[in-house]
């Protein structure tokens, strides 16, 4: 006999028992986890066409309870979709095939501090902000500041391979992850112990980075901290063009400089940012604004900032002082609030797309995406997350049409943007994960061989095919 969520009532009873009663099949509870913050789903919601909810939600409190849920679901071939805070923007947490949503928010403990090594071990449901606050209270920092920090979880960071605003110095979550525990879809546990580095075969930790629930669920992560920097030296510059800014950053990164903050806005984004940062937009017309912060021991930070300034000036940069950067920090998480303001308008389409490319291809990727999108919506871009060999480009597009055509327009824009990136030699994702939004382009990204390996891995690790089976698969919703 099926319950109201379409699951077998006996299974629901066993699941409820497995999680000490913390389970629900109530429609309202299920609807709240029917999707993450993938704008496609939000636009559908807005139009009164919400995605279908899963059959049940469970809130495990331990790795053992996660394992019990997997075992029960595997025996009945019921899909299981892990859910952290539901702030992903690519649909990775959408339970496409229904089943059970594994809400991890009760697993939010800080398990251990090893400050000799600079490690903290946490459960996946802990909010990033809470962890950062706890670390800073001890004089440390995770150095990981995605704009969703107040509302997203460590499990989500790992599952989507997130990067924060200061990743140029502190790395992405990939670089912060020292070890982990995971539960596979057959209920077996994997413990990949924290180590500073290891050469013992392939790095299996990386298997779970970006796995988006397809290989099981990460139930514990050991993350690298760094001592809070003694000093921060801010500086802003106006570059004569986006290309000049890219050239400056390439030079800086190749010289071994690692500023914590690097944000280079293209001229359209510069025009938008200027007013918020106390700058004269008119005077900066056509320029690219660069915000930088160098952190660490004072003399090192100052020296790095001096070198960075020299590199920028060599590309024709005009120094703008530290005011714009100081004005930026209090607004660093504000993008979400802007999205919330614009998205409800009928017909509105708004989203961000983050991609990456090597230095030599960045300008081409920037041009290609803008060419495809800018004639249809207002599109602007900033560069962040620098590496020795390239950087991330973060596009925002906003505009709209009819409400009836909004989801089609959204899907088309994504398709166009992904095609443009692939065509120009970039990677289709930098730090929001692949999810559903990028499923159709995974083949272009990974190639035949790569997709084949991914599928084989999936079959090997999830023989029952229940571990978030919808993710990475193109699907008509």
């Amino acid at each position: 006999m099926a319950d109201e969520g379409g699951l077998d009532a006996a299974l629901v009873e066993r699941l409820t028992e497995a999680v000490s009663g913390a389970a629900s099949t109530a429609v309202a509870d299920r609807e709240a986890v029917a999707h993450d913050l993938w704008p496609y789903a939000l636009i559908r919601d807005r139009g009164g066409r919400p995605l279908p909810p899963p059959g049940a939600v469970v809130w495990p409190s331990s790795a053992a309870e996660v394992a019990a849920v997997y075992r029960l679901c595997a025996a009945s071939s019921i899909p299981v979709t892990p859910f952290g805070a539901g702030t992903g923007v690519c649909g990775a947490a959408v339970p496409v095939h229904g089943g059970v949503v594994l809400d991890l928010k009760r697993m939010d403990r800080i398990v251990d501090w090893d400050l000799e090594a600079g490690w903290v071990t946490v459960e996946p449901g802990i909010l990033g902000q809470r962890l950062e606050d706890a670390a800073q209270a001890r004089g440390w920092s995770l150095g990981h500041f995605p704009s969703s920090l107040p509302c997203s979880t460590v499990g989500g960071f790992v599952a989507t391979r997130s990067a924060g605003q200061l990743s140029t110095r502190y790395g992405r979550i990939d670089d912060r992850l020292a070890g982990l525990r995971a539960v596979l879809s057959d209920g077996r546990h994997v413990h990949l112990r924290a180590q500073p580095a290891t050469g013992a075969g392939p790095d299996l930790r990386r298997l779970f980075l970006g796995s988006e629930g397809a290989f099981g669920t990460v139930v514990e992560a050991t993350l690298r901290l760094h001592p809070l920097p003694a000093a921060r030296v801010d500086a802003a510059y106006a570059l004569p063009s986006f290309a000049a800014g890219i050239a400056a950053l390439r030079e800086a990164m190749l010289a071994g400089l690692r500023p914590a903050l690097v944000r280079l806005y293209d001229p359209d984004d510069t025009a938008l940012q200027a007013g918020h940062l106390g700058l004269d937009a008119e005077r900066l017309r056509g320029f690219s604004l660069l915000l930088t912060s160098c952190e660490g021991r004072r003399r090192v930070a100052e020296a790095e900032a001096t070198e960075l300034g020299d590199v920028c000036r060599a590309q024709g940069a005009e120094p703008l002082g530290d005011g714009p950067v100081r004005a930026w920090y209090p607004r660093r998480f504000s993008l979400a609030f802007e999205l919330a303001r614009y998205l409800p308008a009928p017909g509105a389409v708004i989203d961000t797309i983050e991609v990456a490319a090597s230095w030599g291809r960045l300008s081409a990727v920037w041009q290609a995406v803008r060419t495809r999108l800018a004639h249809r919506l207002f599109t602007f871009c900033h560069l962040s997350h620098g590496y020795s060999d390239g950087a991330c480009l973060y596009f925002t597009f906003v505009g709209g049409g009819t409400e009836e055509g909004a989801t089609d327009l959204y899907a088309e824009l994504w398709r166009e943007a992904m095609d443009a990136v692939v065509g120009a030699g970039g990677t289709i994702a930098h730090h929001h994960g692949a999810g559903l939004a990028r499923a159709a382009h995974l083949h272009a990204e990974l190639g035949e061989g790569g997709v084949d390996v991914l599928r084989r891995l999936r079959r090997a690790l999830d023989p029952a095919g229940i571990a978030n089976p919808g993710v990475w698969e193109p699907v008509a919703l």
Partner: protein
Amino acid sequence: MTTTLPAAQHVAAERCASCPKMCRGVCPTHEVTRNERHQPWGHAREDVAAERSSGVAGAGFAAEAVAESAFLCATCAACTVPCEVEGVETPDLVWAVRAAVWEAGAAPAAAVEAAAHAAAGLVLAADDPPRWVDPSETVGALAASSTPAAPLLLVPGCGALGRRPGAVRAAGQALAALGAPFRVGTPHVCCGAVARAAGDDVGARAAAAALLDGAREAGVETIAVQSPSCAVHLHREGGTAVVVPLARLLGELARSTERTTADAPARQAVAYHDPCMLARHLGAVDEPRSALRAAGHEVVELARTGPATRCSGRGGLLSLTNPRVAAGYLDLLASEVRATGAARVVTGCATCAAALEGALAGVVVEELAEAVAQAFASRGDA
């Protein structure tokens, strides 16, 4: 019946439902239940859906889930601190949704009963099980120490009268000790805050208007309100110019009492809990601390203090409609108080004081007026 939200709250609901839940980390309901829908975002998306289905039998604001969400909130406003979405003030949205739920006839029985008892002049003395009492004795005792024609009217409020009558008497003693003669309205009439929390907007507005108009006609210049939630309600209903939270007034009076520094005994450390209604809704953060310092105390701060304070779970009728969730709020707050190691905690809300007293064995709990009255009376000022 088709029920919709006021235009501004309709926009607020839509915007809140489109936000990446930036306030999730500070919502105490979510911290207690960990349920994705038990946070402003979850409530807002249900509100949007309710408007869409309004007019359908059993749907819209008559739907059980919508009513449940609307009352799973203490209106503590913790979510307003991180929120930067233009046009969104979650307590305003919650009150508007509760009004819609009330109009749809779907308000929880506990809320309907509370509104009826409050309108009848009763006050809540205990939550579980709810016990409503006549506060005439306490009001009478306060009136006995009052000055009938004083320009200052002291309104204890239902919370103080019901949960902590001793704090009401202390309010009178504190004002007297600080040289502020006051009058009292008898018998006690509810200001409408309970009706507002229940969703009975008509009753809420009428009660507030009666109190404010009556005071003005009687020549009252200032209304000092002891229960912060009553002060919040009266402010919303047009009383901003005359209504002052008692905690703020005590702080101002104590600060201006020159004798205090010289007379102060050895400073005793007390933890101070900012009531959410007082600190966030009314912005009274410094004044209670001033009062405590003037009373000779060293103020120990909780981990979450000032506008970031934790709610005790007594606001918004949460302790009546969802006692288990309210108990979770209180546990979180009590843990923070314990973490200070202070042997004594003071709060600017009698309802919070009563709740904390029940949760903190071995810790002396006082409402601000009690601490002030005790200090100044012991110096012979009372």
